[in-house]
């Protein structure tokens, strides 16, 4: 059971995509999760639903609309065109955009739970000790939400590694550009190259198991439900 050069390229591309997606998601997901956890706005329910949509929609639906939106006639396509960038479908950048949307709930939900669990009195105490809003957020909220950040990072990364439908719709299978491990396995199976498909599949199973084990081991003591998001 050995990995070919193409397999290794796919693996490296997958890790790169998952890492980049996770970083972006932590940055984007933090304000969204904070707002969802703390706001009393009537917009909270629809926004929460919007964030959670990728959980229930078939990945092909997300992929299809992303493809349309990023295409030359779509709004994202218009934007990239106007700004002088290349069109996003079938590019690595396109995959990053798709992954960020697809894995958003897996990052937002653990962060939201972690922020919601913070005792308001601790933030009040920080305020009475002279900490302004940003100071309170960074020094108290984010630090108390650290287990939530761990969950969010692991889930965001693992879920991005595991995506297939969205990738196939908007990325296709360009080696070194959009051919991720999941696509590589599909290609191996299509061409009846089962040994290679086994090798990569087993690798993903071991990775997923280790990731989830670390989550349960080091993750938040309570609110395990957030793992299911």
């Amino acid at each position, binding site marked *: 059971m050995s990995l070919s050069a193409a397999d290794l390229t796919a693996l490296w591309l997958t890790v790169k995509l998952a890492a980049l997606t996770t970083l972006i998601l932590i940055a984007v997901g933090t304000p969204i999760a904070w707002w969802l956890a703390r706001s009393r706005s009537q917009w909270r329910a629809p926004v929460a639903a919007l964030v959670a949509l990728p959980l229930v929609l078939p990945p092909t639906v997300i992929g299809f609309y992303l493809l349309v939106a990023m295409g030359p006639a779509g709004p994202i396509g218009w934007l990239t065109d106007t700004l002088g960038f290349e069109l996003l479908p079938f590019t690595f950048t396109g995959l990053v955009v798709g992954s960020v949307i697809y894995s958003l709930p897996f990052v937002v939900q653990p962060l939201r739970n972690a922020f919601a669990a913070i005792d308001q*009195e*601790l933030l*009040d105490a*920080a305020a009475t*000790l002279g900490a*302004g809003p940003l100071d309170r957020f960074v*020094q108290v909220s984010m630090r108390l939400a650290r287990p939530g950040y761990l969950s969010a990072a692991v889930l965001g990364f693992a879920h991005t590694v595991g995506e297939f439908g969205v990738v196939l719709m908007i990325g296709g299978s360009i080696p070194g550009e959009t051919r991720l491990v999941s696509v590589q396995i599909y290609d191996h199976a299509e061409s009846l190259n089962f040994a290679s498909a086994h090798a990569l599949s087993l690798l993903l199973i071991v990775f997923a198991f280790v990731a989830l084990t670390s989550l349960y081991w080091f993750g938040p003591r309570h609110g395990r439900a957030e793992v299911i998001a």
Partner: protein
Amino acid sequence: MSNALRLRVDARPTAEHPLHLRINSEFPCGEVSALFGPSGAGKTTTLRVLAGLEQTINANVAFAGDTWQSADQWVPAHARNMAYVFQQAALFPHLSVAQNLAFAERRAIAPTNSPATEAMLATLSISELLARRPADLSGGERQRVALARALLRRPRLLLLDEPLSALDDARRQAVMHTIERLCRDDGVTIIYVSHAVDEIARLAKHIVVLSDGQSVQQGGWEALQATTDAHGLLEGGRGSILSGTLGPIDSAWHLQPLQIGDNSLWLPQQSADAGAPMRVRVLAKDVSLALHDHADTSILNRLPARIDAIDSDASPSAALVTLRVETQLLYASITRKSLAQLALTPGQSVFAQIKSVALLA
């Protein structure tokens, strides 16, 4: 008056704050003022309004001439020259005790050291707790750290929500002593919420009594004790405060007199020196009356007094007699039978026999 903390609230009840808060008070700067009242009277909410933690409550707050809250002005909590000690301590669980203190110190308003604050930190003796996490502290230790943390902000206004409730008595006395120093030496203004009568009677120069969200009474302790409403709230029932100065120790009997005018009230030997001011609380039920000064009794403290008023409707069997010792008020609760037998009338001179006193300061 700019040298005061002014508070005016008239907040209609809402789902979030079901209490109709109506307070119009002025707390003198550089003194301890107490917020007093039964549970649910709005004491903590009032403190939170003063701290700037309740933006939705319509209020006017001004401290020493600076407007903190009004219809068109809002100074957030972190920008107010103030620190707050929460009832549940509210220590940061992700930080050690030392880091909790450093959190406040880094954001201190005035970086300079002051002797009274140092004395308080020493009294709180938290040096042995520094490496520990809040989760590993007892309730009393947590309160000590919370108090120290608030002090390290070095504020001009200190809001204390039952700060000593979990401390043992010796430490409570010591901390109260340093709280007094904080006002006297550093001019810190303190608003103090407590259920403990001895703490309030000892510390507070100004008391606001809250009931159902309203300030029903305010003034000095002496003014308040003449009114009945406040007394229903006090533990042990009606009582009075006698103040005087300590006299020289009688070393033969380990007693020390509290000089009230020309009279002496004998107390167990105190740690304070002669000349120190001292206040004691005397419950009405611990005072009996005699027409003559009986030397043949074990009751040591017999003070000449004059009857000011008699309320014989206090209960079916008891009557409340209001006395004056010199100019100070003293209450005696006696049976109506005794009242009739001794034929007591207002204006009459009697001897008040005091069975026990509670030391306040």
